[in-house]
């Protein structure tokens, strides 16, 4: 087992992790502010990917533009789901019902996509997906580099937004204590909508970036979503740093399990870790003190 191979797998793990973080980030944002899980989140990613694909093939062959289109599609979906499901159900105070409703939305979306786009995988190639950077016996594809770069940039921007802008602080206020934030003159509903839109837009954009990497079928989302949930919990619900850390860990677990054991065992290892975390430290790797039902 050469050092090169180990190093390569480490890089593969980081790349995989960034992939998952891109999907999980939106989930954790939504949870942080809304304390709700959107089960259809990964389907937003899938739809974003398809939006980018069709844009590139039917309108204009610009990858950058197609990412923008996917961003907007995601935003629109986020607005729709929040307005039609989370807002009406919030008053009923039941934490279970919105989750179930989003399960229904997820099933609907997947099968609508299946009816529209068919089950045959689409090959989404961009000018970056075929090209590979090589140095010292290691290789990374340009597409993956872009994914890491954009993920990092997004996270950095998000961080800055949350910490330094008024809106960001307002968001954090709402997530900590909705009623008091309201008393402070912040309109929680608008902020919640904003969060949802941003998170879903990120999901859509993530889809466009992941499309060349994923096996693009209507079920592409399901291949990622359950692991994304695991990451969000391992990292700590609502916690951005935790999600990133957990995402990278899961990615590394995946590549090293593939190397030393068997790819078929990946899910078992990841979810065993999840259950272990829940048993020992349910608040996650990096926990924020939360008055929670834990």
């Amino acid at each position, binding site marked *: 087992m050469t050092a090169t191979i180990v190093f390569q797998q480490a890089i593969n793990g980081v790349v995989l992790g960034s992939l998952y973080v891109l999907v999980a980030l939106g989930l954790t944002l939504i949870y942080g502010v809304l304390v709700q899980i959107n089960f259809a989140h990964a389907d937003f990613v899938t739809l974003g990917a398809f939006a980018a694909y069709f844009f590139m093939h039917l309108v204009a062959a610009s990858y950058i533009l197609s990412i923008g289109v996917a961003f907007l599609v995601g935003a629109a979906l986020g607005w729709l789901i929040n307005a039609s499901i989370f807002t009406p159900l919030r008053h009923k105070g039941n934490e279970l019902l919105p989750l179930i409703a989003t399960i229904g939305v997820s099933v609907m979306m997947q099968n609508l996509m299946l009816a529209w786009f068919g089950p045959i995988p689409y090959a989404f190639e961009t000018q970056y997906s075929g090209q590979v950077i090589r140095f010292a016996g290691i290789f990374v594809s340009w597409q993956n580099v872009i994914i890491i770069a954009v993920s990092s940039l997004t996270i950095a921007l998000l961080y800055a937004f949350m910490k330094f802008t008024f809106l960001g602080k307002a968001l954090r206020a709402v997530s900590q204590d909705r009623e008091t934030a309201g008393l402070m003159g912040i309109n929680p509903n608008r902020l919640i909508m904003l969060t949802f839109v941003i998170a879903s837009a990120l999901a859509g954009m993530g889809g466009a970036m992941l499309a060349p990497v994923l096996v693009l079928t209507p079920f592409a989302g*399901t291949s990622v979503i359950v692991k994304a949930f695991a990451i969000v919990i391992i990292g700590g619900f609502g916690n951005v740093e935790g999600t990133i850390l957990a995402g990278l860990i899961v990615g590394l677990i995946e590549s090293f399990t*593939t190397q030393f054991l068997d790819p078929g065992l990946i899910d078992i290892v990841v979810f065993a870790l999840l259950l272990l975390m829940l048993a020992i430290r349910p608040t996650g790797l990096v926990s924020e003190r939360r008055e929670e039902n834990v």
Partner: protein
Amino acid sequence: MIKVLRALFVGVAAIGLLATSPAAQAQDKTIKIGALFPMSGPGSYFGAQDKQGVELALEQLNKAGVNGYKFVVQYEDSSCGPLPATQAAKRLLEQFKPDVIIGEECSDATLAVMPVIEQAKVPLLNAGSSSIKVTEPGNPWTFRIMPNEVMQGVNLADNAYKRINARTAVLLFENTNAGIGNAQVFKENFTKQGGKVLAEIGFGRDVNDFTAIATRVAGLGQVDVIPTYTLEGQGLKITQALAQAGVTKGGGGNAIQIGTIWLPFGFEQKAGKAALGYIRIVQFDPTETRDLVRDFNAAFKAKYSADPTHLNAHAYDQIMLIADVVKRGGKDAQSIRDGLAATKNWPGVTGSVEFDKTNQNTKMDTVHYMETKPDMSWTSLKWN
């Protein structure tokens, strides 16, 4: 006057119609074919293409009929799983009462419906499932025109060892019945000849990124062949990842990917130069020069504006074989069954058909080898 003429005209027309309709009735004999294909869920990939092949065959046959018979097909969605498939089969048997059934694609589903259809004493003609269990136990009512996993695997291992001089292999396969089964057969036969299997790497259908797997393969030293058993979506990613890792010829390495039936024409265009040197068994060679194949290609392209895949070709052959059986006198479930069993050297677009005593088609010209050339075209290797 005009009224009288009109009445006369109607009268003559009516008599004419009455005179012809008994003959027309006699022309209305039909052979009912039940089609169990996955139409929903991830397997609908197969079902949609099967339907295309079937429709083309029906169009051609029903122009004149065969021996006075027309063919009618009823499709039922078996969703590639045992329970939906058995429900679809029962529905088909109860309500449509077919004389013969074609399907399914997935081995699990086929194995589940076989007993149900056998009990109803209707022949099942299969062209999609590779598991040896479909025919090996010997069911007089189940027929398979496609070469099974053993036929393909033995042949592939043989050719890998003898023609490409491969001595080491790494198996890559999806964790399904077909994937595991095929990989096992290759392994047994390759090692029996003296080859060495360096690793067996199975993966789930939800894996998107194969860089980690490709890296692992790269670290195994000299690999001569990489038998790959998976569907198009993941197959594409694997081929690209292996090239990126510098393992296969397409990426500057020496390993040759070899595989079987599931990658349709058009794979190379999607995979790009990563697919260079890929050798695989296909069930349908569109570059064949036989008139039968040429005509099929032309007719398919005219109807669907696309090149036919092996799925279309199999479905087409299934219907055409049934038509041949009808030509030889088959007219109901029992006689069709007997007719199928008696088939000798019947030429299909996928190869010839002749069944052995377990009703498996043993003709090796159904196993076509293709290699991907630098210009991304296929050449037939003519190994069979």
